[in-house]
């Protein structure tokens, strides 16, 4: 067997071990490699930045443990920007595990100590609302009719943040972060198409192709494109975190994939040239 034939059929174990190394090395020794802010992330940032103080944002945590490594850092960066701008955030979860993601994200933001935010005045968590698109339609239709208590069991009727919030017309922006295609497109249908709300969305990178047409047509004003988008947002908000470290990992691992693709093709053609199969 020639060297080219061997390179055409590298064992899975070798490929995966090298991928593992390309993840572990930059994770242990972050290099701070340069990154270029994407336009979609910049638009997300600018959309939030353009909101005046005290604007009300409806924020959906639409992911669970599987999506946390990719979307959690971006969610934290997004909250940093919103709290820093003194926006009011009504947080909900259309994903079952969203209620378990909320404390993790809030532990990373720490709005009380970092921004002097007060629960019930500056932000509120209404918890999980079942039904995905029905839930979105319900919250945008008549929030007080649908939800009487927040996630902690406190009546929302006495909360100043929700005093003037009845439904879609009172939200200045709808934002979501999700691993679900139904949630990602659902907010466009329910918030933009039905009520003409401004909407921004964050998804896994592999989902970006499916929601980008909505961004191109202006139905989504910004997209946080997976961990790369999260890194952009961390950079833009000035809160470097896990995503910026992950972008080093992304650079290493994707560069390795490119090397593998090159090796696979060169060896394939050399083998064919030599008369192999």
């Amino acid at each position, binding site marked *: 067997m020639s060297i080219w034939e061997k390179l055409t059929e590298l064992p*899975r174990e070798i*490929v*995966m071990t090298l*991928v*593992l190394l390309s993840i572990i090395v930059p994770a242990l020794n972050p290099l701070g*490699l*340069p*990154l*270029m802010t*994407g*336009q979609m992330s910049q638009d997300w940032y600018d959309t939030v930045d353009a909101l005046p103080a005290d604007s009300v944002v409806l924020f959906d945590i639409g992911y*669970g*443990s*599987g999506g*946390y*490594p*990719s979307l959690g850092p971006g969610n934290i960066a997004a909250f940093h920007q919103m709290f820093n701008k003194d926006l009011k955030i009504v947080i909900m979860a259309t994903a*079952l*595990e969203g209620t*378990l993601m909320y*404390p*993790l994200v809030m532990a990373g933001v720490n709005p009380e100590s970092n921004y002097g935010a007060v629960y019930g005045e500056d932000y509120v968590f209404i918890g999980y*609302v*079942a*039904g995905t698109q*029905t*839930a979105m339609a*319900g919250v945008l*239709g*008549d929030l007080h*009719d*649908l939800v009487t208590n927040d*996630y*902690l*069991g406190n009546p929302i009727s006495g909360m100043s943040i929700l005093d003037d919030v009845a439904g879609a017309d009172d939200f200045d922006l709808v934002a979501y972060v999700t691993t679900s295609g139904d949630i990602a497109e659902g907010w466009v249908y329910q918030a933009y198409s039905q009520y003409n709300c401004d909407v921004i969305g964050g998804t896994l*990178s592999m989902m*970006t*192709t*499916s929601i*980008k*047409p909505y961004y*191109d047509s202006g139905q989504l004003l910004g997209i946080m494109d997976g961990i*790369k988008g999260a*890194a952009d947002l961390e950079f833009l908000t000035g809160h470097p975190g896990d995503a910026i470290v992950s*972008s*080093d990992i*992304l*650079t290493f*691992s*994707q*560069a*390795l*994939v*490119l090397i*593998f*693709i090159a*090796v*696979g*093709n060169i060896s*394939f053609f050399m083998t064919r040239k030599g008369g192999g199969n």
Partner: protein
Amino acid sequence: MDYKRDIPLAITFLVGIIAIGDYYTGIEAVTQTFNVIKNWGIVLQGFALGLGAVNLLRVHGKRISERRGGTDWYFSAWLLLMLAVHIILGLVTGRYEQGETYSWLYNAIYLPLGSTMYSSLAFYMAYGAYKVLRARNFDAALLFITAVLVIIGNTPMFPAIYPGFFHMREWIFGPIVSGAYRGVRIGIGIGAVVLGIKTLIGMETGYLGRR
């Protein structure tokens, strides 16, 4: 008259007409009625979660009692045990907020496991790219070139060195991907409208279940 068929069809028609009325007329009474219906829907979906848990018990309980399929029933037993542990701990240690033990169970076990499931994709995708992305013929060469350009544009460092890589990726995502996807979405949209009309007028009854 077939009540089992006609009553659900009548309810569907009525709800559909109210939904359409809410979207097109904006009459307050219609909107309020539709809000009530939406809230009913959300409550029903909540019950569906409980129904799912009962179904889980039924399916895996049966698998355990029959002990068929080698050692698979061990996994069913473990699933039901964990279901019980989480329900009991959730109810005992916290009413609204998660108790410390519950949070520990989730953060120390489920969260890393869930993250690992997604993360393991990286290894298979890398190996898949190495094996599959080979320019064996013209079609494969097109896929190969597109994939390489997207990977280069998606790798944080390369566009930072040369922004052209990023614009190349954006161009692929724009006219090519978005254009194709828009066509797909329009097709799906037209199909959804037709399905909606057929459901409203009772021509489509698949949602009533197997009959």
